[in-house]
């Protein structure tokens, strides 16, 4: 018993610095976010736990205001576009690239490096790079489309409008009843795909190296084509990797901020404003507007969606807990 208590004491010494930093700069701010989402406050006149004079209780008012706000649902729609397009595109491309690179012998290292290196690039810088590519005067995209006579081409098919120009302002939209999908969101998604596909390539490559060569040899002997082998033998083996890659991409899509901020600033208007950008603006665009409470309400909603959606992933992370 005595020895066990001594063990505890030294355990706390090891964990104390981490606990202190975590409590002060994560736990308390997180709890603060949740509590202050029930109060009316601004950054300049914040809700403060120790000062009852700052407690302007709003009940569920902030949540009601957010959920009644058309701008919130616009941001939710844009985030939904991210949630669908980004994980699908990035997972598909990284799987395709990993498979192609796996098939070749010579040059595999070079190609893999090309796709993996952008992972180290910040989404801020990636946004800058793509804004240059999208530049209407000297961007590669306009020039390439111009070379085949398609620069500025327009398609006007009722609800579907496409314009092969103005990538960062108005490349078109698709009206689906009450909602309109703005294609300018794709211009913000593309840099993220460029930067983060490498993560999928690494994960799938690791999965591919663990497939036993006998399995593929057997299929080859039976005369299966390269495509059939990939579809029926290889890809089913990559299920585990695919789940992790998709989850990581979904988590990224849900909280995306940087690349939108740099490429479109959520614009034009609010056409590409995602939830994380709206949240930031509600609290921090003007320090004295008392909508910081609404911003924390959005943060709570966003986190709740994330925790519920990614709970299986969290469980799998916790399963690896050291015993």
């Amino acid at each position, binding site marked *: 018993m005595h020895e066990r208590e001594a063990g*505890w004491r*030294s*355990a*706390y010494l*090891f*964990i104390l610095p*981490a606990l202190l*930093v*975590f409590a002060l*700069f*994560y*736990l*308390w*701010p997180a709890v*603060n*976010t949740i509590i202050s989402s029930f109060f009316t406050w601004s950054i300049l006149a914040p809700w*403060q736990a120790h000062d009852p004079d700052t407690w302007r209780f709003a009940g569920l008012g902030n949540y009601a205001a957010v959920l009644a706000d058309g701008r919130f649902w616009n941001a939710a729609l844009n985030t939904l576009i991210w949630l669908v397009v980004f994980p699908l595109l990035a997972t598909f491309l990284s799987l*395709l690239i990993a498979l*192609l*690179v796996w098939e*070749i*012998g010579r*040059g595999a290292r070079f190609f893999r490096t*090309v*796709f993996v290196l952008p992972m180290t*690039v*910040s*989404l*801020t*810088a990636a946004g*800058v790079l*793509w804004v240059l*590519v999208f*530049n209407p005067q000297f*961007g*590669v995209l306009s020039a390439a489309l111009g070379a085949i006579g398609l620069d500025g081409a327009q398609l006007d098919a009722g609800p579907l409008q496409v314009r092969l120009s103005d990538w960062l302002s108005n490349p078109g939209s698709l009206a689906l009843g009450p909602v309109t999908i703005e294609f300018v969101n794709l211009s913000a998604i593309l840099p993220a795909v*460029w930067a983060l596909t490498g*993560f999928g390539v690494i*994960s799938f490559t690791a999965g591919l190296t663990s497939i036993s060569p006998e399995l*593929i*040899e057997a299929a*080859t002997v039976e005369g299966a084509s*390269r495509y059939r082998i990939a579809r029926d033998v290889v890809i089913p083996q990559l299920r585990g*990797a695919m789940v992790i*890659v998709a989850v990581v991409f979904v*988590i990224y899509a*849900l909280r995306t901020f*940087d690349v939108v*901020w*740099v490429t479109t*600033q959520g614009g034009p208007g609010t056409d590409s404003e995602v939830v994380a950008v709206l949240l*930031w603006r509600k609290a*921090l665009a003007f320090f004295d507007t008392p909508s910081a409470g609404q911003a924390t309400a959005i*943060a*709570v909603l*966003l986190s709740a969606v994330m925790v519920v959606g990614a709970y299986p992933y*969290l469980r799998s*992370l*916790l399963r690896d807990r*050291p015993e």
Partner: protein
Amino acid sequence: MSRRGDIGAMWWIYGLLAVLSLLWLVPVATVVMSALRPLGEIRDGWWNLAGATFTIDNFLGAWNEADLGSKTVNSFIITGFSVASTISIGALASYAFVRLRFRGRGLIYFLLISTMIVPVQIILIPLLPWFRTLGFAEGSWQPFLGMVLVHSAFGLGWAVFMMGSFMAAVPTELTEAGQIDGAGHFDIFRRIILPLALPGIVSFAIIDFVFVWNDLLLGLTLLDADHAPLTVGIANLQSAHLAQQDVISAGALLAILPPLALFVALNRYYVRGLFSGGVK
């Protein structure tokens, strides 16, 4: 891994890879050329190489006039101290989780690991008033300290997850031998666990460096212009809507190079670290 001699299929595979890698390299070529050439020249297309001149003026402009020089220094200060601090407190905590039993262990571990999923927005907004309360909002070094502590808190989950998995792989016989020799926990940690878990620590250091260096949201929210990192400087230049593509390009390259250099130098550790982080 050409298993069969169907040369036609190989052509297709190489062709597709060539097209894809070209798409991936276009933004890189764009930024490099825009950074190295005068703005007047790239207006006709940077790919136009007839009579091209190359200059470092854009880098000088970014470093001095656009004030990205001081922001680069800020980025190094924030990132260096954040990584050092996260590793120090994270390694100690990892040891406790892997080798010691204590009350609240399960709960604390759960909370730390949750931060890998919960978005940073859950702490973001109250942090600014909190900084003012704690005196981190202004001063010469105080904002840096505040930022380092926030990054440390935010990185702890990953730190414990990754370094913990490497420490757990150290055979218990080794640490038990140490205990029999009468060594205390701190001696065991320093002499046995740390050296053996070093590859894991290096892996985490690289990933944390890339993460902190590339952060925009925390820097944008919490730091004034004197303490802002490079990412914030670039984002502000970008949203200024002025035709400064040459300077922005040079700035973007400044921001890209340090993590890239680290990656190229220590590629092996980086990839291994990513795999311990959930991709097994």
